[in-house]
Every structure is written in C-alpha cells, then in structure tokens.
C-alpha cells in the first residue's frame, strides 16, 4: 500500500492558512440572526397545507401519491397497484405498516432484511419499503438501511413503493435530519433522500424517467382525517 500523505497535506494547509482570507470573502457571508434554511422555499406550518405542498411536489416530480384513509384502504390500494402493474414477484422487508398489506398480495417474496442475492433482487418487479420521513418542501422521501430494507431495495427494482403515515411528513431537510437523530441517536452509515423516480436529461436535455433506478415511484400515505 502506498504511503499516506496526511501530515504533508495538513502542513501545507496550515501554512496556507497563516495568511487570512480578505475581509470581503467573509463580510458578504455573515448572516447570524436566522437559520440558513429560512431562505429556502417556505414550508407551511399547518399539516393539511403541508400535505398540499407535498402533493404538489409529487405531481411535479411524477411521483405517484395515493392517500389512504385507513389500513383497509391502503391494502386495497396496494392490491390495485399489483394488478395494474402485473407484478409477478416482489421484494420487501419486515416493517409494521407493510406487513399485512404485502402478505395479502400473496406473491413470491424476497426479503432484503435477511441475507439475499443481488441477482434475485434485480429480477423482482417491485420493491416495497417503509421510510423515515417525507419532506414537504421538496417532495422527498428519506430512507435508511433500517427503514427501507437495506441499501438496494429502494433503488434496484424497476418500481419502488413506499408505505408511510401522516406523522412522518416533515417540513424540510433539517427536520428530516432531526428525525434521524431522534430515532437512531446518530446519523446512520447509509441515508438517502429520494426525490422522484430515477431520471436523466443527458440526451438533448430531454427528461427520461428510469435511467438506472426505478422507473416508477409510488407513495401510499395513510392519512386519517
């Protein structure tokens, strides 16, 4: 193994920093009175308005959002998706909200929270997972290995279905980080914000969905009135 240049680089950095940056680099940057996130798109405090913002963002991102008023409706919606998309196999993990509706589909099932083989997951028609939070400001979904059955379940199958509940909807990324800290006491080794189905604009800047990750993203949101 080649030798590490840590000390050399640190020495160069410290030498460089003996000269202070000109005041103008800093003067234009200081804004001590507000948290920086105040300047981002605003997030309404009221839950119903937040839901409306989340819905609007999902529509723009082409994320399919299905609101379910109770557990029964959620199971029906999931069964509807299975039929509509002609799923023949699915991958999932054990999580409370998904347990019954997924079992009710009665399809060949791969569990990714137990040791599994990647090619088996690649062959599944859909990955069904939970999440840690939904973000109304961006229309995003926060997943970790614990909440979403590992690192690959939410990105390898061509369709990703997220099952979430109303209390998981938060305002912005900062709130989502707070959820992680509270839930795990630390930020886990893997966390990802998913904001819409996989996309690319690399050919003539024209939007195509499903570049490498899921072509479809569906959120089933349990929202009891």
């Amino acid at each position, binding site marked *: 193994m080649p030798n590490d240049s840590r000390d050399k680089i640190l020495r160069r950095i410290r030498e460089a920093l003996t000269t202070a940056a000109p005041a103008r680099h800093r003067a234009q940057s200081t804004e001590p009175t507000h948290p920086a996130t105040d300047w*981002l798109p605003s997030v309404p405090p009221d839950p119903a308005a937040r839901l409306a913002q989340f819905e609007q963002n999902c529509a723009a991102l082409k994320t399919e959002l299905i609101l379910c008023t109770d557990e029964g409706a959620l199971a029906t919606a999931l069964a509807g998706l299975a039929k509509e998309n002609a799923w023949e196999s699915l991958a999932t993990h054990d999580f409370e909200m998904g347990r019954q509706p997924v079992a009710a589909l009665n399809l060949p099932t791969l569990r990714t929270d137990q040791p599994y083989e990647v090619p088996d997951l690649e062959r599944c028609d859909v990955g069904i997972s939970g999440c840690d939070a939904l973000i109304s400001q961006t229309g995003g979904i926060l997943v970790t290995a614990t909440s979403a059955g590992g690192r690959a379940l939410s990105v390898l199958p061509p369709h990703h279905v997220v099952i979430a509940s109303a209390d998981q909807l938060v305002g912005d990324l900062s709130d989502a980080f707070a959820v992680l800290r509270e839930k795990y006491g630390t930020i886990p*080794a893997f966390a990802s914000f998913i904001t819409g189905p996989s*996309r690319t*604009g690399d050919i003539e800047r024209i939007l195509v969905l499903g570049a*490498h990750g899921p072509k479809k993203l569906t959120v089933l949101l349990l929202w009891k009135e």
Partner: protein
Amino acid sequence: MSTQSQQFHRDADRLTHDLTHRSFIQRALGGYYLKRDQEKSRYTDWQRARASASAAKYEAINHLDKYLLELTGKLEARGTKVFWAADGEEASDYIAAVARGAGVRRIIKSKTMTGEEIHLGPALEKAGMEVVESDLGEFIVQLREEAPYHIVFPSMHLTRGQINETFQEKLGSPSADTPEELTMIARGVMRKKYCEADMGISGANFAVAETGHISITENEGNARLSTTLPRVLVSLVGIEKVVPKLEDLALLLPMLATAGAGQNMTCYNTLLGGPRQPGETDGPTEFHVVLLDNRRTTLLADAEQRDALHCIRCGACLNVCPIFKNIGGHAYGTTYQGPIGSVITPHLRGLQSWKHLSFSSSLCGACTEACPVKIDLHHHLLQNRRNAISQKPVWWEKPIFLGFAFFMRRPFLYRFAAPMLRIFGPVLHAIRGQIFDPARLWTGTRDLPPAPARSFKEFWKSRDAKR
C-alpha cells in the same frame, strides 16, 4: 504562446463559426434558464440563501485542517479507511493497490469530476481492470473516447442521432431514435455491469465533518447502485468538499439542485458514512475514502482567490457564460470548463500555460452573479491576468505605453497625426487583418471606421467661427 493556448485559439475560432453547434448548445441551455428561474422564484430569499451558503463554505475552507481531521476521525470510527493523497498519482496508485489487494477485475464508476481531473479511469485500465462509467452522459462520452463537455451535462453537445450511431457501433444495439429508447439501451447494458462489478468508485459533492459522511447528488440512481452493489467501494473526495455541519446540507443540497439543473432537489442525495454495518444485509464490505489535494493547497495559499475553493461544481457559471455558450466545453481543454475552470486551472496546472483562459473573457460578471456560493469569479479572472503579467511581463507593452504617453503630452504631434490618418486610412483598410498589418490580431475581427472628413478640433473651430 503555450501549446494549450494555441489549441484553445484554434478550437475557439472553429467553434464560434459553427452556427449549428452554437444554436444546439443555446437551445439546450434555454430550458435550463426557464426551470432555474422558476425554482429560484420559490425561494424566500435567494440572495440571502447564497450568502448563507457562502458562509458555510467560508467556515470550512478557512479551517480546513480542523474539519478534515474531524471528518477522518468520524469516518474511521465506522470502519471506513481514509487515505490522504497529495496528488493524482498517489490517489490512483492507492486505488489500484486496493483493487489488486481485493482481487478486483471489474470496476463500475459513477460520475466524478475529480476522477477526470486525475485521469483515474485510464490509470486503472492500465493496471488491468475493466472500468465502466455508469452515468449516462459519461458512458456516452466514454464510448466515444471524448472528454466530458460540461461538468454537469457531459454529453450535452451530442444529438440523439450521434448517440444512436455510437450505440450501434460500440454496443451493437438496434437503431433507436428517441432519447427514451436510447436511455433504455444504456440501462439494459448497465444493469448487468452493476451486478458483476467487484468495485464501485464514486466522487462526492460534500463531506460532512460533524457526522463523518460523504454526500453524493445524482439524478439517475447510478451512484446509488455503484456505491451499494459492489463489495468494495472507493470514494474520491477533493479536500475542499468538506462542510462543517450536517445542517449545512439542508441548504446546500437544494441550492445545488436549483443552480445546477433548475431542480427543486436532485433525485437522489445519498449520505454514506461507512461500509456495511453490523445488522445490515447489503452494501459494500470495504469502504475507502481518498482525500485528494492535487494542488488545492496551492489555491488555498492564494488568500485573495481562496474563495474559489468554495465551489460546489454546480456548473451554473458555465451555463450563463457568453464564452462557454459560443465556444462550448471542449475548446477549453481542461477538466473544469467555463469561468470556474478558467479561474482554478492556472492554480492546478500552471499559470503561464493556462493564463489565456483568463484573458478570454468579456468580464461581464454573469458568472459571479450566477454563483450560488458567491465566488467573485470575474475579479479572479482579472487577478489571474495581473499575476500572469507581473510574473512574466510582455516586453513590448512598456515601450508602447511610454510612446503613447509621450505622444499624448504633445498636442502638436496628434494635431499632425490626425490628417495623416485621413491620407493613409485607405491603405490601412486595404491591408486590414492581413499579414502586413501590424495590428492584425486586433483589426482582424473588428471594423476599422473610416477617418472622418474633419476632426473634432476642426469642427469646433468652424463652429466658433460661425458665431
């Protein structure tokens, strides 16, 4: 003139005359302007967001040693191996050694401009590994054996027809004529590659010192797959990518998306803080983070331009630059194109060889205005010009200005010269831009107005006489 400068002038000249190329690039950017402005207008205050983003990067860069050590400690605590590389060769050698040590044969790479900077792909191929780019744009330019055209949109200069030809020729795929069909061809090829690869290589958009995570921003999902499926993962991170706090990402991630691609948020923003942890069922079992200097500390030592290290590589300055829009990305001959490339390349690769980029600017300031972290780009171009000239003065400039001063202090000289211009004007017109014209570099691309029938002085005199 350096060979880099000759190449630049030749390519720039050819491309500015290529109207098809120009209109294609400008049409592609038209959609970006629209979406960027829509997203910016949703911000409560874009200007204050910029100031705050700048403050976060200022803090990181001006305490770089502290934050890099914090980052390293936190990464190592979760079982990540951190390697500090002084230059590109050290980084490539280390990654090749890791690959050999782990018996790696196939490597899948997600987009990393830092990797382009140190020519990592070719170095690993030379070491006997198969290296495949997974980002669609990068994959296309890799097949065509071209350099990326733009730091964010590597294949934006290619039409679907050209991409179709490349795919047919290199992949043997059936002819396709929509971006969707072409994307699906690449998707099919790449799916196999992800599952077969033993090693994934990624870059990083940010590295969070507080929690010990790298953050990767992407739209396609290729970086998530490349960092999840292979058993060994290496992330190449420029030392300037560090930010102090996780909270900084709550601001920087949306701003990167808006400035870079006119999005509210990029599709996948992934935090990676370690290899597979106890209780996890997937993810790499080995995770290496390579922290790369490669003359970033030289730029750091130039306090005046230190804020160029605040750059988050969003590409916004390229997209608004009148030079970029006319000459395109390849003419620069650099890893980083556009204004930011013109500013930092002289620091990374030598001022005298790359100073011509700083001179090729109208100094309009569009870049500075577009920059989400408020880098004073167009003044840095001026400072590069000043530094280049004071380091290596142009011998004939001083005598010319002395002569000019001599002339301007003596009115009788220019009273005599003005009528001369009227007499010799037609001669100057006849030779304009040709080999006999001593001022051809200037006059070759500019109009020479005809000398007026009488000078202002004469006009003023006659006006007085009439009164």
